């Protein structure tokens, strides 16, 4: 609370590994931003890139970026920051032998070179347009001497960074306590932390989170269910704000027939389904304020994303007619796989029931579900995707489409070719054009039906100043007590 200048944060998941490169959970991503800094910092409001540990950068060629580093920064343990740290970090994470968990974040990096003590070059394997976004995001800089000494295990137990908060204690899976970094470097785009202590508590049960919030045990929670949020906002000491995120929900169709010759391979059926889902109703009734219907296979703010694609309005009659044309006037049985948002899945199942598709719901763990989709056991999956908060269309389409991408269930060469161009060209206009073509075809062929964007509800004590960010990363270093 404000009286002891301590912010108690309730989290639904625990951060199983404090080492930023060995965790994939969002909680890990969030904590990373508090403990470490990156070379650049992406503004949460206008998505512009601001200097952070690097004061400036420059594309030397399509595969080389040069960074000028900031002087006078020290890590929490007193180790000074310079080019060695950056080079060490980039070389460590780009080395496949080190088996960092999220290879996607780093597989484009060839390595890094030290030019002088305050200049570094990052080398790319191939042209990779979103490189800057990655560098400004999930690639924190580690202290080279410390990390070389303790390794990932030591970093997990006792993380050390340059960030606005310093880790005081880690009770694995239960609680992490951080304290404001008194010596945080001046001029950071993150600003100086105002709240002295952050206590991150793992409370998996949403009800308990709410109970704690109402009884003052915690000051901040997020992802409150829209209904809960609405009711929480009526509680005197609590305020609820919504914040849109890059996460979108979508239906992935097995158009290529990886799972066999199902009705889903029929374009008319896919279109019928697309017309049958009452997206607008669902968004209005079941999703938090700020969520909206999305049409393209990407989040609209992402570079390269366009909303100018064919759309499917909610139209039962048309859907039924398409079903008849497709040769299924009486519908068929279908399994809808999903891994979260049971209620939304239930409504979609219900919607499809209206055009004769008899849906059975099948809840799976995400990893298992992904495997099943690769193995050809799923015809229709309800996914959600947050693009790792990468503000680039490749962060979204690149995962589900593309040559050699095993999760690509469309297997459309044309789409893949266009995406290839978009993903590897630096020139923005060329990229945008290629993405537009690809996204248009994806929508037209109904390989994927984007459903809605997710907005999160943040519920916290009225005495707290807190502004949510669109990239799904709450920044407590900017929060303060009123």
């Amino acid at each position, binding site marked *: 609370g404000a009286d002891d200048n301590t912010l108690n944060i309730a989290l639904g998941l625990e951060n199983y590994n404090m080492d930023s490169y060995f965790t994939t959970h969002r909680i890990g991503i969030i904590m990373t931003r508090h403990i470490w800094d990156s070379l650049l910092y992406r503004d949460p409001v206008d998505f512009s890139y601001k200097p952070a540990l690097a004061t400036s950068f420059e594309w030397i060629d399509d595969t080389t970026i040069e960074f000028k580093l900031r002087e006078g920064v020290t890590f929490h343990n007193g180790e000074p920051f310079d080019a060695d740290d950056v080079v060490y970090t980039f070389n460590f994470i780009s080395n496949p032998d080190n088996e960092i968990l999220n290879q996607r974040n780093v597989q484009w990096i060839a390595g890094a070179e030290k030019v002088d003590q305050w200049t570094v070059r990052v080398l790319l394997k191939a042209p990779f347009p979103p490189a800057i976004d990655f560098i400004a995001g999930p690639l924190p800089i580690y202290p080279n001497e410390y990390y070389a000494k303790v390794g990932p295990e030591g970093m997990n137990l006792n993380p050390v960074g340059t960030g606005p908060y310093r880790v005081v204690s880690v009770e694995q899976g239960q609680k992490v306590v951080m304290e404001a970094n008194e010596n945080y470097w001046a001029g950071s785009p993150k600003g100086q932390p105002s709240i002295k202590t952050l206590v991150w508590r793992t409370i998996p049960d*949403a*009800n308990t989170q*709410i*109970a704690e919030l*109402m009884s003052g045990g915690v000051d901040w929670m997020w992802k409150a*269910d829209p*209904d*809960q949020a609405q*009711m929480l906002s009526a509680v005197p000491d609590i305020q609820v704000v919504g914040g849109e995120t890059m996460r979108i929900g979508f239906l992935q169709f097995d158009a290529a027939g990886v799972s066999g010759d199902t009705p889903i391979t029929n374009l008319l059926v896919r279109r019928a389904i697309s017309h049958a889902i*009452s997206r607008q*109703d*669902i968004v*209005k*009734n*079941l999703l938090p304020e700020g969520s909206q219907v999305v049409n393209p296979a990407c989040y609209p703010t992402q570079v390269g994303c366009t909303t100018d694609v064919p759309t499917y309005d909610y139209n039962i009659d048309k859907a039924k007619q398409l079903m008849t044309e497709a040769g299924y006037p009486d519908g068929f049985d279908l399994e809808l796989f999903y891994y979260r948002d*049971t*209620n939304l*899945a*239930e*409504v979609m*199942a*219900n919607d499809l029931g209206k055009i004769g598709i008899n849906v059975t*719901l*099948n*809840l*799976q763990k995400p990893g298992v579900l992904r495997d099943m989709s690769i193995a050809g056991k799923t015809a229709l999956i309800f996914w959600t995707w947050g693009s790792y908060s990468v503000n680039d269309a490749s962060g979204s389409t690149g995962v589900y489409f593309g040559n050699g991408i095993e999760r690509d269930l469309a297997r459309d060469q044309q789409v893949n070719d266009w995406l290839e161009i978009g993903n590897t060209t630096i020139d923005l206009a060329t990229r945008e054009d290629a993405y537009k073509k690809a996204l248009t075809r994806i929508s037209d062929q109904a390989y994927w039906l984007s459903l809605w964007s997710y907005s999160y509800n943040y519920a916290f004590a009225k005495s707290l100043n807190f502004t949510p960010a669109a990239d799904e990363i709450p920044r407590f270093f900017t929060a303060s007590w009123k």
Partner: protein
Amino acid sequence: MEDTKMTTIADSLEGQPRPTPRQNMIARFKMHRGFQFGLFVLLVIFAMAIFAPLLAPYDPYLQDLSSRLIDPVWNEKGTWAHPFGTDGLGRDYLSRMIYGSRIALIIGFSTVLISGTIGTILGVTAGYFGGRVDMVISFLILNRLSLPLVLIALAVVASLGNSLFIVIMALGFLLWDRFAVVMRSATMQIRNMEYIAAAQVLGASTPRILAKDIFPNVLNQLVVVATLEMAHAILLEASMSFLGLGVQPPLPSWGLMVSEASKFMFFKAWMVTIPGSAIFILVFAINLLGDGVRDIAAPESRN
């Protein structure tokens, strides 16, 4: 003078036929309020399950997003159109409750059918044959008892996927321990009765003895355990569904309804209260019934 008095007493004593076991049972039944109440409630729930399509005002799966979260009729904002209100997807709560009785009863009965069969076979075998057979089965029972029930059930459901069928199978294959324990000791008791020896001497085969002499005499205790385990199974399913590893939505399982509604716990308590109380009432009735059966049919097995 004294003589005549004696003989009349003697005559009345011997002349009056003793009541049959069934008459005794009926007499005890008439005295037993708890049993009658339990039976009544259970019959009502049974009727609800059987006549659900007639009783339920709506299709329990029918969603209507425009009429979500309507309060029940006893609240200010409630309407008679939805006496128990509606849930988060606008489904009629009363109809879901009514259909939910089916799920609860199916879970209760099928689980007990499986676990009862396993447990009874194991228990009776151990109790009747004794010796090494008993040792092996006792060891099995000990193993089963030392496995944390809820955890194992959750693990199974988590790995095989949640569906009514899997939940029933998981519970059925886990809840046999009490059957085995009780049947084992009951059979051991009966085993030492002289009428078993008599049947052996009269040339009855072992299966015949098991069927005619052992089984009817452990049946009462079997029924008692079965009722209590049925309650146990219903509670467990509710707990598992509450933890998200029970039956699959949109099945109107009461436990799942509590789970789905628990997010409204602090604001719309009725959404949790209604299915919660339904579980409670059903389990309560079954327990009363079980206690009643014990008192009425097998008063000797009080503990």
